[in-house]
Each structure stands twice: as C-alpha cells, then as structure tokens.
C-alpha cells in the first residue's frame, strides 16, 4: 500500500512519463536502493496498464529498471493474458447462445475492444464482459441468463430494499438504468447486459444506441466471431464511458490513444453526423482528446480538431481532471462532477444532484461530516490542535455554496425564461431588427 498520497502521485507521474516516452527520450528511474518498485507495480495494476507497461519496459532493458519489477510485471502480464483469452472464449460462447435464442448482441469493451484496437488479447487488461442488446429483448435475455446460472447483481439503486424496482420487467427501472450486471455461476467473471450506453442523465453524452445496430461490424476473435460496434461508435462510446468515470483509470485513456492510431480508418463524416445529433457526445469526445494530449502527449488528428473543438468549458474540466491525476495520482472518479461541468443545463444538474442525494443519504452524510477536502483547508489555515474545527467548517461551507448556486441557477433560469417570453411577445417588425 502507499504510505502517502504523495507516493501514489509520484508513481502515477512516473507511469505517465513511461506512457509518453518516445524512442530517444531520456527516462529517469531512481536507483533501486532508494525506490520501492512495488508501489509502481501497484499503480500499474490500479490503472489497468500492467501488460501495456511491461511490454513497453522491455524496450528499456539494460537501463535502471529493477529485475524484480520486470519479473513481477511479466508474471502478472501473462496471467492477465491467460484470463483475457478465457474471457474471449466466454464472450463468443455467450454471444452464440443468445443468437441461437434469437437475441442479437453487440460485444462492447473487454476482449472485443482489445482485439479491435490492440490487434490481440495480450496488451490490455479485460476485467469483464459487456454486451449490448435491444431494449425490447431485455426481459427475455435476463431470463435466459438466469437459466444459464448467471446471477443478476444490481448495483443501481437499492435492490436489497426494493427488489422489484430493479427488475428488467419494471419499465421505470429500464428507463432510468442502463445495464444489469450478471455474475457467472463460478464467480469467475461478470457480464454486463446493456440496453443503453448511459443511464438517463448520461444518455445525451453517449451515441444513440438504436443506431449502433445498423452500423455494427463483425469481429474475428481467436475464439470465434462476434458482432461489435463500428470504430466510430466505439470511439464515442469510450469517450462517454471515460468521462462518466472521470477518466479515473489510465487504461481508458490509453484505449483512446490506441484507437486514434486507427484514425485514418475513421469515417469522420459519420462522427460529425453523430455529434450533430448528440452534441454532448461531442463534448465528452473533445474532453478525451484534450486529456490524451495533456496527459499522454498525443495530438488529435486534424479532422478531430475540426469536428470536436475544445470549448472553454471542456478545457476547464480537462484541466481539473489533469490536476487531480497529477497531484493525487487519481481523479476523484466523481461522475456527476464531469457531467455537470460539461453541460450547460442548470436545472437538469440540480435535478440530478437531488436524485443522488435522495438515493444515497448515508453517503451524503459521510461526505459532509466525515471528510475534509482541500477546499476546506484552503478557506482558513488552522493549527494542528484546532483541525477538528474543519469538521464544522465543512458543512457550513457546503450549505452556503450549494444554496448560493441553487439561487443563482433559479434566478438565471427565471430571467432567461422572462427574456424568451418578451422576445416572443415582441411585434414582428421589432424582431426583424
């Protein structure tokens, strides 16, 4: 484990340095006696880039890379590789089973992504399987999965309190959620059945799932063939997914970079059309491109710069995420912080916040009364023996902050509505001016 947050940040910066390393660049490694390589290995595992880093480090053999680190990463990489192939087999088998029952599915992320983007299954850590199915086939698919001894493990809402609420035959749940995770009978892996690529609030940020089917492609895996998203849909879906998790895992950003290496194969007019219909999908894609540039040193393709320009809002969010990763070694992972900062719909934001508060009141209480953030400490510097006062300052600061924000939002919405009414009521001759 890391002794300090600073330790995690240092190792993450080292990891980023390695990810951005180019042939001929100098790479500084601390002497083996002054460095615990296990922290670096743990950072690689946390960010899901163990395999990718190991194969990259091999090119640096002969420099000051401890043999124990290479051996550790090598062993882990081989285990990851074995598991990836195992998952790929399960994916093909499951897709075939569903197909035989008349249920079409699209393989999403996991082994399909690894094969499509990396050309193999060894370089990317796959943790589970994701399948997209049509919403109208959800109930049947869920029943079939149960029949095949998969256990539904709902993570959305409070299934233990309201089991009926989170069932696939509950239209309200289907409208609000996006997936049902299933655990295999031997607990070896999870399968997430998606009918949307984002829950209700994230929907505008994701590609239109109904259109995925008409653009789907066949993909050959070592273990068989599956249907999957086309490159353009995959790009936008990955950008939305990464934004949703506030790019907390560098593996996702590496996926984007590797996908951009295939940008020559992209149908950019298709992407342009998609973001015209879903502008917020363009915002998350723009965010991904900025982070790929800022953290991994990869410039966006020329076409991407024209179709997915970075706005001031996007740059601000990217800057915040970048600072979190560089100073803390990880992003806050707060999905709604990214969502709310990328869009300009204040009422939707308030509604979303309120819904989360009502759903997770205990988490909220912990967040307010148990945690002290850098913003609390920045408000006033207290001596060590008075630091307990931060636990009082924090709730007061939060109440003031959110009340002010809510008042501002309501005022601007009311003013905006009044202006719109005045404009509509103005005589036509005036409007033409």
């Amino acid at each position, binding site marked *: 484990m890391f002794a300090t947050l600073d330790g995690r940040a240092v190792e993450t910066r080292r990891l980023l340095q390695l990810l951005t390393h180019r042939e001929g660049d100098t790479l500084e490694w601390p002497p083996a006696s002054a460095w615990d390589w296990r922290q670096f290995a743990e950072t690689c595992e946390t960010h899901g880039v163990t395999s990718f880093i190991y*194969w990259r480090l*091999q*090119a640096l053999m002969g420099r000051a890379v401890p043999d124990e680190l290479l051996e550790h990463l090598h062993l882990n990489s*081989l*285990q990851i*590789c*074995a*598991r990836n*192939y*195992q998952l790929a*087999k399960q994916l093909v088998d499951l897709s075939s089973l569903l197909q035989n029952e008349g249920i079409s599915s699209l393989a999403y992320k996991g082994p399909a992504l690894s094969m499509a983007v990396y*050309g*193999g*299954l*060894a*370089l990317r850590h796959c*943790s*589970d399987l994701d399948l997209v199915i049509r919403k109208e086939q959800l109930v049947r698919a869920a029943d079939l999965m149960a029949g095949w001894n998969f256990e539904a*493990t709902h*993570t*959305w809402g409070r299934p233990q309190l309201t089991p009926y609420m989170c069932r696939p035959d509950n239209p309200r749940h289907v409208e609000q959620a996006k997936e049902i*995770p299933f655990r295999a009978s*031997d*607990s*070896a*892996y*999870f399968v*997430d059945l998606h009918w949307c690529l984002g829950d209700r609030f994230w929907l505008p940020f994701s590609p239109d799932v109904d259109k995925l089917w008409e653009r789907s492609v066949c993909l050959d895996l*070592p*273990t068989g063939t599956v249907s999957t998203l086309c490159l353009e849909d995959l790009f936008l879906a990955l950008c939305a997914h990464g934004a949703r*998790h506030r790019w*907390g*895992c560098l593996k996702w950003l590496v996926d984007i970079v590797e996908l951009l290496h295939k940008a020559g194969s992209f149908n950019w007019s298709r992407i342009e059309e998609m973001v015209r219909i879903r502008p917020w999908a363009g915002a998350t894609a723009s965010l991904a491109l900025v982070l790929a540039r800022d953290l991994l040193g990869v410039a966006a393709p020329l076409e991407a710069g024209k179709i997915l320009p970075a706005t001031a809002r996007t740059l601000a969010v990217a800057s915040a995420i970048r600072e979190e990763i560089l100073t803390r070694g990880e992003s*806050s*992972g*707060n*999905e*709604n*912080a990214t969502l709310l900062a990328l869009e300009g719909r204040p009422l939707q934001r308030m509604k979303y*916040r309120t819904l*989360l*508060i009502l*759903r*997770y009141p205990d*988490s*909220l209480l912990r*967040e*307010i009364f148990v945690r002290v*953030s850098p913003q609390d400490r920045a408000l006033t510097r207290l001596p060590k023996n008075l630091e307990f006062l931060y636990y009082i300052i*924090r709730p007061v600061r*939060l109440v003031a*902050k*959110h009340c002010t924000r809510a008042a501002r939002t309501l005022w601007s919405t009311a003013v905006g509505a009044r202006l719109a009414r005045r404009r509509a009521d103005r005589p036509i001759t005036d409007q033409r001016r």
Partner: protein
Amino acid sequence: MKPLARKGTIFSENLPQEVILYDKTSNKVHCLSKTAAAIWESCDGTRTVDDLVHIIEARFGAPSDPAVVLQALAELEKAELLEAGSVTLPDPAFASRREAVGKIAMASTALVATLVAPTPVAHASDPKRTPPPPPHA
C-alpha cells in the same frame, strides 16, 4: 526427425519479446520466447534439427546451440504445439542429445510456458461494481 508445427487451430499474437499462442482445440494459452517461436514457425515437416539451427543462427545473427533447439522442440511437443509423432521418430544422435538437453534444461529457463488464468478475485474491486457517489462537495 522433421518436426511439424500445428498451425491450423493455433492463433498467434506477436509481442515485442515473446509470442503468445492460443490453442483453440485445448483452450490453452502458451507464451513462447522469440527463439522458440522462430523454431515453431519453421517446423514445416521438411526441416531437420540442423536446418532449424541454421535458421535460428540466420534469424538472430549469433551461433545457436543445437541443445537449445532440441529443448525447444521438447517443450513444444509437451505443449502439444507440434503434430503428434513428428518428434518421436528414433534418432540415434537424438538419444545422446536428449541426455545432454536434459542436463541443460535443468539449468536453463523455459522457452515455452503454458499460462494459467488467475483465480477470480482480482476484479472484485472493479470501480464499476460500486454505486456512484453523491454530488462531490
């Protein structure tokens, strides 16, 4: 002896320093060193051990020990990556070489490793498995 590689049901993935082979028949994954991979690729049923030694020397630009080639063939055979029977023909020279290989293999590292997937606990901490947090204050 003219070994023949099984390739029809094998998927190969080239990495910087190793080659991953996936056997679709047995659902096993093998990791080969570059030397072992070059030997496996060259086993077309017409080449002898000496031919393979020359191929390795030409490929890697350094003299190759026949014992290494024999070790690789032994490990490839054990991993069922060669056609059954293609390395079992009696070879008088092979018997004494096999003895030499046995001694060498005890001291050297494996050229072919069959991979085993880890136990299913690593993904329990997947951040996706936890509910989203409330608004970050």
